[in-house]
């Protein structure tokens, strides 16, 4: 493989199609397990909400209500973290299909294979995805620890439950916002890949077959 030689796109040259790169292979493997995790977590979070509502209606124990007020969102946002991860991995899988498929078409046509290197938006997508996952999970862990402590009898945390709930909700929500921006970057990378492919396809007829 040799260095990029185009001025409009940063590409790798090869005689054969390059397969998906590591992030794309990971995406192909993990999108389905993450979706499965999300589908399991959402009903659990909802069930905890129903249980909490029943306690509120029946005038139940304040500590249990407060604890469930933390554990419910924790479970729900495990679901959100997993489903956003699944979306991100599915986007990586699409990018892998574009990369591998584009190379196969060029190889089949007997032309030198040009493969788009990962654009800046794709690197930002991966970095922001990792960061947002950690932020959401930090909020989830915080909720889980506080909820478990209140359920275990901590009166200090019970007194401060509302304040902690507001904080952890804020952390979870900024994590969601970051994740959505990461997804936007991933989709923007798909546009770049499609644009490169459209241009490259028009160049192929004029090139001599290898």
């Amino acid at each position, binding site marked *: 493989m040799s260095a990029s030689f185009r001025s409009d796109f940063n590409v790798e040259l090869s005689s054969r199609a390059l397969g998906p790169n590591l992030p794309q292979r990971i995406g192909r493997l993990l999108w389905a397990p993450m979706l499965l995790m999300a589908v399991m977590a959402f009903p659990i979070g909802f069930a905890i909400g129903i249980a909490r509502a029943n306690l509120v209606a029946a005038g139940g124990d304040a500590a249990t209500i407060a604890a469930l007020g933390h554990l419910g969102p924790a479970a729900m946002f495990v679901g959100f973290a997993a489903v956003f991860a699944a979306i991100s991995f599915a986007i990586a899988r699409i990018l892998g299909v574009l990369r591998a498929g584009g190379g196969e078409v060029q190889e089949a046509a007997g032309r030198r294979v040009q493969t788009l290197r990962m654009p800046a938006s794709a690197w930002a997508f991966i970095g922001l995805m990792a960061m947002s996952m950690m932020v959401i999970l930090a909020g989830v862990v915080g909720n889980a620890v506080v909820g478990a402590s209140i359920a275990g009898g901590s009166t200090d945390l019970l007194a401060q439950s*509302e304040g902690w709930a507001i904080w952890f909700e804020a952390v979870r929500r900024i994590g969601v916002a970051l994740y*959505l921006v990461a997804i*936007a970057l991933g989709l923007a990378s798909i546009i770049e890949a499609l644009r490169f492919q*459209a241009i490259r396809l028009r160049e192929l007829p004029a090139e001599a077959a290898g």
Partner: protein
Amino acid sequence: MALTFGALTRPDAESEVRAPSRHRTIGLSLAAVGLALATISLVNSIVAGDLARQGVSADQVGSLGAWSFGLTTAAFATVKLAIGLILLGIVRHIWVRVESVKASLPTLLRSSASDAAPLGEFESAFGPATATTTAPKPLLIHRLAGLMWAPMLAMGVMLVYAGLLLSFAAAGNVTADPALSSSQRAWVQGVQFLGEGLLLSGVSFLLGTILGAIRAGGGEVQESLGLTVKTLRMPTTAKVFVGLMMLGLMVEIAQFAGYAYIATVPGTADYATFSTWLGPLRELGLGALLSGIVLALATIARALGFQFARITQIITSGR
């Protein structure tokens, strides 16, 4: 109205292939705006949480919380609108790519087949497919998606931002009229999450439009070459995607009805009880919509894989 949605999703055949995507640029800029709004809300929530832990008046915390919720949801909606714009850019670039394939493929054929491929249903490496002489007509779901993505996005954005304005009103009434403020906060949650549901449905319809473009574009290319048109049948992931999208939207409508009810009974036991489970219900609805979106993306990957395999087959075998 002279401007049709078709014109928005399919550029002219002669449009500039090299032109950078404006949808990408505008979408990413809008995403940055959404992130900025979310950051403002984060700072506000940190302050509110600190005040709550110090035990200051519930009114002060409630007021901060009221508009913070509205602003955070508006931030999410802004980034989701940005995602919608970028998806629109993807649809357009799929069609630009189709024109490039049509222009180049005739010259790339390495052999020509003496006979056409057999017609009928067959099993491909990507699932069941059909072989026909002409490009298949768009499926009903693709036609529906092409019509509905724009109204859904527009309604979603309007509802979320209407809820944002109402959240400021609710924040202002926390001390002056607590019952009115409670009622308004219920409306804010119901309206904004109905808006979020409509936005995600708009995103889902755009993904359906992408799938329709891949199917229609692939058919056009093969038909233009006089070849047997091979088309992937709708995979199970696509069918489940449609089901989850409808389920999620119905749940969001149900939560809106629930909040509309408790808005009429502020300060009662019903208000407290319903509020407790309506929150998880609305998030369950969003979860269903997002899960559907994952399956739509998986379907797009499969359809693209089928398309590349077909193009490669045409180049190498001529049929």
